[in-house]
């Protein structure tokens, strides 16, 4: 009962073997080798896909297509961001696609047929999403029906509701310029650069403050070189993106000038910041991960598991509503197919490709965006090459399988490495 064989390193936190930039890099590679791959497969896939499509079609790397990508992928990406919440708990929401459709339809009906101002219509649409989420979540958490069944029923039911609102399938066209601007227009170039500068400065400030806070308390902080590297990486990547988006992308600039960061980009960014904050900086978010990891432990810790379960569905459906409004903006109206066909499957794919586990407890909102980007790139790139829908579906399916495979393999490695 005296000697213990494990190495006696003091409890003073030492997050990495060496607290230097090199140490962090080595630690990261050790983590990846140990099976904790995070969003790495999605990022790698994104790079590979971009290279392949860039070589195959000269249009792929144009500024115009780049801006297009964001606008095309917005709906799926936003739904995927919401799905992260339910996936974290090990649940699923199959109805998110049609939730987005129904909410967009409610918005469009109020806007065009009842003459509501755009902001009330949008709020009403989002409100409907919130109510749908509350309903689904209550059935799952309080009645104990598996979420797969509840949301499968909602998938069918909401599809019908959408048809009902569209009186059997008549499409509604939206003319409101504000709604149309959401996923079609771009910001002035100066605003794009201002936003860019603000993002970098705020990010740097937050990192530095965090580091200083830890130093003040005598906890081992992240080395300054790592902080600098993070900020620099953001500055370079976001800078290049802003530059590309701010370049003239109109085929005929004399007739119409087309440049600037698409408005959808800051919308997604704001959602990303808010949701990431909720999941990683609040007790609520911590409890979400805890429930996903071990619901019984969470319950014993006094966490109200039922309420959180309901709230996850509320988040998911509310974000689906926002996604629906974005989609309605994109296609200048709603029809019976908005939110239908493969929207939901793409969104689940995006979340999973990004590294969110279907077993719960693992996933980030940012990863859903990366996964969404990969799906958008495949869709867009294959379209440019001239592949038809059949091949697009096959390739997207294969990519999803690969992503799930990587997840499974990494999980096995993680188990072997004891992580």
């Amino acid at each position, binding site marked *: 009962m005296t000697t213990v064989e494990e190495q006696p390193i003091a409890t003073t936190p030492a997050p990495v073997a060496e607290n230097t930039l090199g140490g962090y890099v080595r630690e990261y590679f050790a983590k990846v080798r140990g099976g904790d791959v995070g969003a790495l497969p999605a990022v790698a896939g994104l790079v590979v896909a971009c290279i392949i499509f860039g070589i195959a079609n000269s249009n792929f790397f144009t500024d115009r297509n780049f801006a297009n990508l964001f606008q095309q992928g917005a709906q799926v990406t936003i739904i995927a961001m919401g799905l992260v919440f339910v996936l974290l708990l090990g649940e699923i929401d199959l109805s998110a696609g049609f939730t987005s459709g129904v909410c967009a339809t409610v918005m469009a009906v109020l806007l065009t047929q009842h003459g509501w101002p755009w902001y009330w219509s949008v709020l009403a649409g989002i409100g409907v999403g919130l109510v749908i989420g509350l309903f689904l979540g209550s059935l799952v958490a309080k009645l104990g029906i598996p979420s797969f069944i509840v949301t499968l029923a909602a998938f069918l039911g909401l599809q019908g509701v959408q048809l009902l609102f569209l009186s059997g399938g008549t499409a509604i066209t939206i003319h409101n310029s504000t709604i149309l601007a959401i996923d079609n227009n771009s910001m002035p170039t100066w605003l794009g650069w201002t936003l860019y500068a603000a993002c970098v400065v705020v990010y740097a400030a937050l990192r530095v403050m965090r580091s200083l806070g830890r130093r003040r308390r005598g906890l081992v902080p992240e080395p300054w070189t790592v902080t600098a590297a993070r900020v620099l990486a953001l500055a370079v990547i976001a800078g290049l993106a802003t530059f590309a988006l701010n370049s003239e992308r109109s085929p005929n600039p004399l007739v119409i000038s087309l440049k600037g960061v698409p408005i959808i980009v800051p919308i997604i960014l704001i959602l990303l910041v808010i949701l990431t904050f909720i999941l990683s900086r609040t007790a609520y978010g911590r409890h979400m991960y805890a429930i996903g990891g071990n619901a019984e432990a969470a319950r014993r810790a006094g966490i109200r598991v039922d309420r959180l379960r309901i709230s996850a569905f509320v988040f998911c459906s509310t974000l689906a509503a926002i996604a629906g409004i974005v989609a309605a903006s994109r296609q200048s109206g709603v029809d019976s197919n908005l939110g239908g066909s493969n929207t939901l499957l793409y969104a689940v794919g995006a979340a999973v490709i990004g590294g969110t586990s279907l077993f719960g*407890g693992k996933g980030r909102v940012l990863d859903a965006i990366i996964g969404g980007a990969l799906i958008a790139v495949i869709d867009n790139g294959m379209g440019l090459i001239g592949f038809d829908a059949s091949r697009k579906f096959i390739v997207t399916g294969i990519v999803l399988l690969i992503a799930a495979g990587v997840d499974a393999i990494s999980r096995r490695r993680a188990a072997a490495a004891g992580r």
Partner: protein
Amino acid sequence: MATTPLLDVRGVNKSFGAVQVLRDVDFSANAGEVTALVGDNGAGKSTLIKCIGGIYTSDSGEYRFDGKPVTIHTPRDASDLGIEIVYQDLALCDNLDIVQNMFLGREKVSHGILDEPTMEQMAADTLQGLSVRTVKSMRQLVSSLSGGQRQTVAIAKAVLWNGKLVILDEPTAALGVAQTAQVLELVRQLADNGLCVVLISHNMNDVFAVADSIATLYLGQMAAQVKASDVTFSQVVELITAGRSGELGLRPATAGAAANHGGGGTIDMNGAQE
């Protein structure tokens, strides 16, 4: 005993339907000591600690904590008094790190934001106070920890919340030799720090290694609660299996009656405890 026991329960009865699982059980535990609670399967150990922890409400019995009579109806009541139970399955989240697990459900928050530095510091201080040196980083995921380290985290969690009475349910059952030693060392350390520790165990070596006093349950009755230094290994085994050992334990008649009574009920009692 000269000092007032921190925990003192008298005459606890508990039935599940027709099966009486605990009958007139007396049990006490002193601060600064390790009290081992032993007994065969179905003897009522788990039921007793669940009554103490407020998960079950006892049918009758007197309950004193720190000398004052108290009533405990819910786990909340128990944790408010400073009673923390570390269950066999530990109730840790694999996907969270050590600090996050230790503060689960009771996170420190400032202005609505998790106060990570404060939590990390408090968790580190607690582990240091327990002389735990086996944890590399406070930010390690629990899934990367060994069984002994997990047990350590679960125990430290109880200590962090100012537990006065820490009840450990078979803490070494699933551990190897080195890790068992590590956990027992921690158990001893807890008592030396002035906490009252109740250790449920099947392993007599563990019991004699750390316990100051040993309470033996036999078919729902307290056979004897004795000082560890006053009994031998084989006496305790006899108490566990027969309910009596020489002068110690239940009187023959009672022991026999209990055996007759409990004979058919043993299986049911197991069922009731699940």
